[in-house]
């Protein structure tokens, strides 16, 4: 069985085969024989060449979160969106026009108005979460096209607070 995942922004292939109650894990040229035991929904015990690994994992809509020996890994399924980032510079410049909150929180202040010119690093808004205020700055020079949030609104990192346009 072959699988494809995105890890650390790169595509990786894994293949699993079952042989005599053990799994053969193949990654590129590397191949290991592992004794795998599901301990619970979120825990796998894995014996590999005498070494014992305890893997903790859980998935949400976006990714699988994995912890091994204290290290954290985030693995996604390849999708149209994640493959998009291969587009490179253009995409990231485009992204800079959509001002989003860095984390879920509450809008405290909007410093700009529609049609207002903004310079690079100008503070556009303040969002608060868990009693911490965070300033949201513009990463380019441009003009405010549209403001989609008002002080007091609860916002998600997916929501666009302010649309900018280059002049």
């Amino acid at each position, binding site marked *: *069985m072959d*699988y494809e*995942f995105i*890890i*650390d922004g790169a595509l*990786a292939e*894994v*293949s*699993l085969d079952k042989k005599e109650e053990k*799994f053969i*894990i193949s*990654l590129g040229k*590397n191949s*290991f024989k*592992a004794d*795998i035991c*599901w*301990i*619970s*929904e*979120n825990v*796998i015990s*894995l014996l*590999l060449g005498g070494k014992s*690994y305890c*893997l*903790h*994992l*859980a*998935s*949400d809509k976006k990714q*699988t*979160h*994995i*912890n*091994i*020996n*204290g*290290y*954290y*890994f985030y*693995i996604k399924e390849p999708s149209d969106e994640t493959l998009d980032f291969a587009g490179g510079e253009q995409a990231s410049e485009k992204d800079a026009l959509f001002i989003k909150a*860095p*984390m*879920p*929180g*509450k809008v*405290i202040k909007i410093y700009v108005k529609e049609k207002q010119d903004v310079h690079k690093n100008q503070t556009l808004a303040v969002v*608060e*979460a*868990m*009693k*911490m*205020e*965070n300033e949201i700055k513009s990463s380019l020079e441009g003009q405010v096209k549209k403001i989609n949030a008002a002080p007091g609104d*609860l916002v998600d990192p997916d929501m666009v607070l302010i649309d900018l346009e280059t002049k």
Partner: protein
Amino acid sequence: MFKKILIANRGEIAVRVIKACQELGITATAVYSEADRSSLHVQSADEAVYVGAAPAGESYLNIDVIIQAAKDTGCEAIHPGYGFLAENAEFVLRCEEEGIVFIGPNSKAMKLVGDKIRSRLAMEKAGITIIPGMKGDLQDPSKYISEAEIIGYPVMVKASAGGGGKGMRIVYKEADLRPALEAGKREAKAAFGNDSVYLEKYIEEPRHVEFQVLADNFGNTVHIFERECSIQRRHQKIVEESPSVALETDLREKMGKVACKVIQVSGYNNAGTVEFLLDKDKKFYFLEVNARLQVEHPVTELISGIDLVLQQIEIAAGKKLAFKQKGLQQKGHAIECRIYAEDPQNNFLPSSGKVLFLKEPSGPGVRFDCGIYSGCDVPVYYDPILAKLIVWAENRDKACRRMLKALADCVVLGIKTNIEFLKDLIGHPRFKEGKTTTNFIQKNFPDWSPPEKPENLKELALAAAAFNSQKSSFQGGGYGAEPKEVYSPWTKLGKWSIGGGK
């Protein structure tokens, strides 16, 4: 002793206080906001009262509602935890008026130590060394500018009403003062319901050393040694320990005596903390009194064997201190790491959401004061502290090793935390050497990113994701049962019959 206590807080500290009450046979009444129905403190308590909407101002900070909850449930006392109403003199006064015992200092002492300016004046008068800072009126913004001139830059903007780094700003030049004041006031207002701020001299590269103090209602005062809390980020403590590597026996005794004097001068009772800055030349300056149980109180509990919450309750119930200064002892070494819901890779911004999985560290000398569980929601409304990991060992070196192992054993999946950062911090050679000054993080971790992950573990992670997919496929997309699981706990028991027939 009290029969029933209301715990006016949430999260790990509410759980900690609830357990203490239950050990004493006292009924523990929790309060909860709309965001907290499924929170751990509600499950742990004997009773629970709904107190309002999710924003703290409408629930945990709402004095009327909290007082009413205590009266409705017949609570004789209120434990405020830390944060929220813990250092609100108005709330303490209200408790006094309503005949409810506030488990903390009396309102007069609270008002004095809560007003950083008045308390600094009182201490100066009593001959206690303080950091140069402003003494004047707080209304006129222009006065701050002239005060800053007198003190000399860099200066620090601090909230008059609270601690914990909320509302703090360092200002190096006049041009930055006004925005810093504004931001500080806003944060102070949000955190403490009071926007007054003041300025003081910013001492560079000091250590933050504080003394835990207990004072009963009969004038007996003891200190339970120091905690060093120099490891801070954005003026927020992250790692605390006792003893401080910077203190020799003589200096400890001297500072402890001053701490007790501060408490006596303030007319303070119950548990409190006297904060000092210790400079390079081992000169120490009184900073302020934290008129509450501190987040880092377990460090003191582990090195002294004194249960501070128990002491708070007993003092509030009118008991005399059962020990004297001479009988107290500092044994071994304790370190605390605060586990925050924050993303070190995203500028340490708060990280809220669902905890998909939690593995609590445990073992000899390991204590985990925890406010979360597998499957819980971490709301955006409150402090990002999820849990505290505290270890004790015979000496500092062993405590560091124990902490590193416990941090590796602590797994939080679903939201981001500072655990990996803490591991790097405790494992840092400068930390091991005890070179802990308040600029430790700035100096040693100016731009932290997670350690390089071993390539073999990355491969195992990919294999795990594949097992996971494979399992889902086998299970047809539903919850997977372990291969060994023969029966599902959910398929059995209790047929229902419609219409009420037997």
